């Protein structure tokens, strides 16, 4: 079955699960987001900032990122008819992705086991914070909590030992999403060959812990607890960020061998005595603080962009530290098609993020805006489940389609 022939159903808030199904939508799959006005995604219930309204929140760019290309069907799963309609969609689906806390389906009389029995070719991905079982099963969590519990955050910080979290970036969500992608795609590949569906119970915190795998392996091999290392790498000195002239301008610079060190010394005008003292990797590693201080002094008055362009031309690993607004317009990202400009009917032009995979042939791209909640309810229920206008009226009146 090709991607464009897949039917995918999604329930769940936030980023992790929705990004899995958005990826499938970008491949051309038909993705239906089943949601309810009785329990909105927390991304749609943010406190509106000054000057914004609750309606703006419903169509905020973050919501658009996660739900692009999907159809929205509103169903109140607390009603019996709502559950029957939902099961009807599940019966037709190839993939079902859910990312609420464990037990929510069971509380309304449903389960992924039930879905699998009704539809043996179905692939279900359940993405909860800690997995479907275990002592932390019911613990509530968001991405930065998962990376904290997983041992990731304790490795980020300065070389003096201060931990500084990646709290603005919520890496745990995205990592969970891409693990979800890998698992669902692998299950689809297997189903092509065997006809078997699969039920996948994924822990988002385990996904984050997988990112701490090298640190965990170091601990296992040495018995020493990995601590923050700043921007250093044990195999290269210099390997760090260096401040240049300007308000908050920095470059990332690494030297990987002794030849590169000689090139750097020439380019920066490093004194001969220092060039010689630190001519070998071992000597630079043994005095990394001194080497860093020498380089910092050399680059402090240089303009960032002139510096990194010159060092690149010299064959060295040097690039600018871009802030996120600069990254928006940086040619090495823009020209790879990482962003796409869209005109939203209400909020105007917005630049959205593409899935960062490039193919010669596979067609992976954002196709449509996210729909407002319930936009496709009538059409989908009619088309897929044969609902009549009279039935839709009855369900609407009974709150089934809220």
């Amino acid at each position: 079955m090709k991607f464009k022939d897949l039917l995918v159903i999604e329930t769940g808030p936030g980023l992790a699960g929705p990004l899995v199904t958005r990826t499938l939508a970008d491949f051309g799959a038909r993705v239906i987001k089943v949601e309810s006005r009785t329990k909105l995604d927390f991304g749609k219930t943010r406190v509106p900032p000054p000057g914004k309204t609750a309606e703006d929140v419903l169509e905020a760019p973050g919501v658009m990122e996660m739900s692009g290309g999907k159809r929205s069907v509103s169903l109140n799963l607390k009603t019996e008819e709502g559950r029957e309609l939902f099961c009807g969609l599940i019966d037709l689906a190839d993939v079902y992705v859910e990312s609420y806390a464990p037990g929510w389906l069971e509380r309304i009389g449903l389960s992924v086991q039930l879905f699998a029995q009704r539809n043996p070719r179905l692939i279900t991905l359940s993405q909860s914070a800690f997995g479907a079982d275990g002592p932390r099963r019911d613990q509530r969590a968001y991405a930065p909590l998962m990376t904290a519990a997983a041992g990731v955050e304790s490795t980020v910080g300065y070389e003096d030992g201060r931990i500084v979290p990646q709290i603005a970036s919520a890496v745990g969500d995205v990592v969970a999403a891409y693990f979800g992608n890998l698992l669902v795609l692998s299950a689809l590949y297997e189903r092509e060959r065997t006809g078997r569906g699969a039920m996948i119970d994924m822990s988002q915190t385990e996904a984050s812990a997988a990112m701490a795998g090298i640190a965990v392996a170091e601990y296992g091999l040495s018995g020493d607890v990995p601590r923050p290392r700043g921007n250093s790498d044990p195999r290269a000195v210099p390997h760090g960020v260096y401040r240049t002239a300007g308000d908050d301008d920095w470059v990332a610079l690494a030297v990987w061998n002794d030849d590169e060190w000689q090139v750097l010394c020439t380019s920066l005008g490093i004194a001969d005595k220092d060039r010689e003292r630190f001519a070998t990797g071992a000597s630079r590693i043994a005095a990394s603080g001194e080497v860093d201080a020498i380089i910092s002094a050399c680059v402090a008055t240089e303009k960032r962009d002139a510096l990194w362009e010159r060092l690149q031309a010299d064959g060295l690993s040097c690039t600018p530290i871009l802030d996120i607004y600069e990254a928006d317009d940086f040619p090495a990202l823009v020209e790879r098609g990482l962003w796409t400009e869209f005109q939203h009917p209400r909020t105007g032009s917005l630049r959205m993020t593409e899935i960062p995979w490039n193919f010669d042939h596979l067609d992976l791209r954002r196709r449509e805006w996210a729909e407002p909640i319930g936009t496709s309810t009538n059409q989908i229920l009619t088309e897929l489940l044969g609902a009549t206008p009279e039935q839709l009226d009855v369900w609407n009146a009974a709150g089934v389609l809220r």
Partner: protein
Amino acid sequence: MSANATITTTSRIASRPLAGVQVLEYGTGVGVGYCGALLADLGADVVKIHAPRDVPGEDAVLRTRAETLYLDSDKTTVHESVGAEAFRSRFSSVDIVLRGYEPSDGAAPDLRREYESWGGGNADLIFVAVTPFGVTGPGSGWHGGDLNAQGLSGWTSITGMPGEAPLSMSYGIGALQHGLNAAGATVAALIERGHDQGGEFVDVSEADVIAACIRMYSLTYRFLGIPLKRNGLRAPGSSGRYPHTILPCKDGYISTICRSETDWNRFLAMMGSPAWGDDPRYRDFFAMATDYPDEVDDLIIPWLMEHTKDQLAELATTFKVPLAPVRTADEVVREPQFEHRGFFRQRTLDGQEVIVPGRVAHWTVLDAGAVDPDGGHSV
């Protein structure tokens, strides 16, 4: 749908959806190594071309051994001269070539040309370029690695203390994300190859992967009107709702976020419902987040300092509060939740047994006997 399937549980290790897929991995880098490791974990037969390199110093040796242990344990490692005729001949029929590149390898190779030379003898080949900046665009020939890719992405600029150096992810965390993305893209190409499409050239850059990740979040900050820049232990402007931060406790740190009024009410209940919690000043969620978060911290920290990480984790579970301890590696490997789910697995390097993270999911399959493999439905 009328079929009733028998559900058969398999262990997370035994499930091998990519069984029979032949993969060749060469070139250096954590990204390509992790891509190969993930495919191997899912059942593919991965052959890695060993590329030894001399590293100076104890820490460097430890890092290299840790990477070998985590990334290569489930692969077949061989010593071959890449590019030699015998090499091409031996691996001419593989399904997938994973090609990494790092600055320590020297000048950036022309991977498009390399793919074409492989594809000449194998029209169905999937060639995956796992590089810092990609094989197209102005950065395609640049020198650089994990540190540089993170810096370009915008990620580094937002991590760190205000006024101090920006921080990148260390211990290969950025490159592991790169490898994870490359693995997903590889399997997508594998699925499509089974239809009317033949081979595929896949290009996944670390700069793209990290930039896409942070940008998805930056849109929310832009919507909230909060500048996204490094802000120490707290998310900038608490991302619009207090708290969204790391705070100290008796034996370390905890991370906590409240996304709703319910979350905040539970947090206060966990603290024993202090009287200040009813003050309207501490019910204005956006103002607490953006205008006086330090003031609210000062009300909470004394209570946190009376509790250990483990005690707070228990309380958080009881009160359903989004809060987690900031765990270190030694704590993570003893965490009962991971142990319960059998997450860690044992691997051996030079006779030393070490546990490392395993598969992140329990995988349950349906009994094939109950299912018609050619069945299915049209939508």
